[in-house]
């Protein structure tokens, strides 16, 4: 594991951002050329949302990976988190502009449709996390920064719930995502506290 960690230390975070953002032009290209199927708007919404959820999951997996496997990805956690927020924001943007488009219906949907309300709350919860994802904030907030960023757990749970609620009937994929999210959250419960990782 040490040699992997040594290799990873050499990877610059800006590279993570660049690779992480490649799907954006890729999805847009696919949407325009039929690569996202016959209804590209909902498909694009879905791809962006799913990628956001995957990034949140990867972010949540970093601490357990370090403690159980010894793999150290802490350096990349910030960029993964910011990327997750970016994809949630893009997912929301597609919904606002391409999907609904009608302002009055947008507001009605947010208020009256539970899965959308939950999605919106999940997004709003991520805003302070994105805004404080910098060294200055960590310094200024000190111990409060860590507590604030526990909102990630809330965002993850709401995102998973949003996915389950939008599906028609019982579908496997959203349930699998939720199972993974819940296990990563369960790891944070006091009863599962592990000894600190070896330095």
């Amino acid at each position, binding site marked *: 594991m040490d040699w992997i960690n040594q290799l990873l230390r050499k990877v610059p975070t800006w590279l993570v951002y660049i690779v992480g953002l490649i799907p954006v032009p890729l999805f847009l290209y696919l949407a325009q050329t039929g690569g996202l*199927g*016959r209804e590209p708007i909902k498909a694009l919404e879905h791809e962006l949302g799913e990628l956001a959820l995957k990034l949140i999951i990867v972010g949540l997996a970093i601490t357990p990976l370090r403690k159980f496997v010894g793999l150290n990805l802490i350096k990349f956690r910030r960029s993964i988190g910011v990327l997750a927020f970016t994809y949630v924001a893009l997912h929301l943007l597609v919904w606002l502009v*391409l999907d609904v488009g*009608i302002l009055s*219906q947008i507001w009605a*949907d947010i208020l009256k*449709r*539970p899965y959308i309300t939950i999605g919106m709350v999940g997004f709003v919860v991520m805003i302070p996390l994105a805004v404080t994802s910098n060294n200055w904030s960590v310094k200024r907030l000190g111990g409060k920064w860590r507590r604030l960023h526990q909102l990630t757990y809330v965002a993850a749970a709401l995102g998973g719930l949003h996915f389950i609620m939008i*599906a028609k009937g019982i579908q496997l994929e959203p349930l699998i995502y939720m199972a993974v999210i819940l296990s990563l959250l369960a790891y944070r419960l006091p009863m599962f506290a592990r000894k600190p990782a070896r330095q």
Partner: protein
Amino acid sequence: MANRWTNTLSQSDVTPEAAFLNRRQLIAGAAAGFGLAGVAGVSNAQEALTPNSWEDITQYNNFYEFGTGKTDPAEYAGALTTTPWTVEIDGMVKNPGKYDIDDIKAAMTIEERIYRFRCVEAWSMVVPWNGFELADLLEVAGVQEGAKYVAFETLYRPEEMPGQRFQSLDWPYVEGLRLDEAMNPLTLMATGIYGKDLPNQNGAPLRLVVPWKYGFKSIKSIVKITITDKEPPTSWNKANAREYGFYSNVNPNVSHPRWSQASERMIGGGLFAKRVPTLMFNGYEDEVASMYEGMDLSKQI
């Protein structure tokens, strides 16, 4: 009893898809003929119905028997064998029995019907179906006095329909109509699209089309039709009665609990396709509204 309904602008001959797509249907002379200045009097169902492309119709489907993704049916429905195929007709009929699909098709008048198709998920297409009126088949079957409903059942064959190995719905898929709905001139038993046999993913070899209801009522790959006097169970109603009712008439005024039904996305418009307002009874108000007089459609969903 065939040919009781036609598009005001119908193509009586089957034409190649390219010709369909290039033809721009103009609003009929009905408005001019009656001196109507505005278009308020013209039924929207008859207005400029340009069918969706073959690719749209056959590559974007909800057919959970093959998977819950929109492209799963196109990808996996090839496994389905549709010959031989029999349709069992039973219940309150004078002539019950197992009818071979080829015999049914030979006995019926197959016509072309271009219908709007509105999914409960708020997307829609225009489909040029080929098929016969359900009423004609029911006449052959001989509906008995006292019958009130028609129930339908889809094939159950998990070895060919991989989605049936997972309980996303209670298999086999079942649906039903009130007898007057079944006898309505619009109610079609489709056997083809664009003059070709129904592709497997669209419900081969025989499916129902009730264009004024949400698409899930248009049950696919039918193997059984039962005439009964009790309201039959329907799959989506069994799965979630709060969201999916027996009638499921297209109604912009009654929201689905989780989304509005006031507008819909027309498939085929690409990334910048606009939403269009949903029409009451999917634009077939003139033909069907009388069947629901006195009913509270916000309660009897």
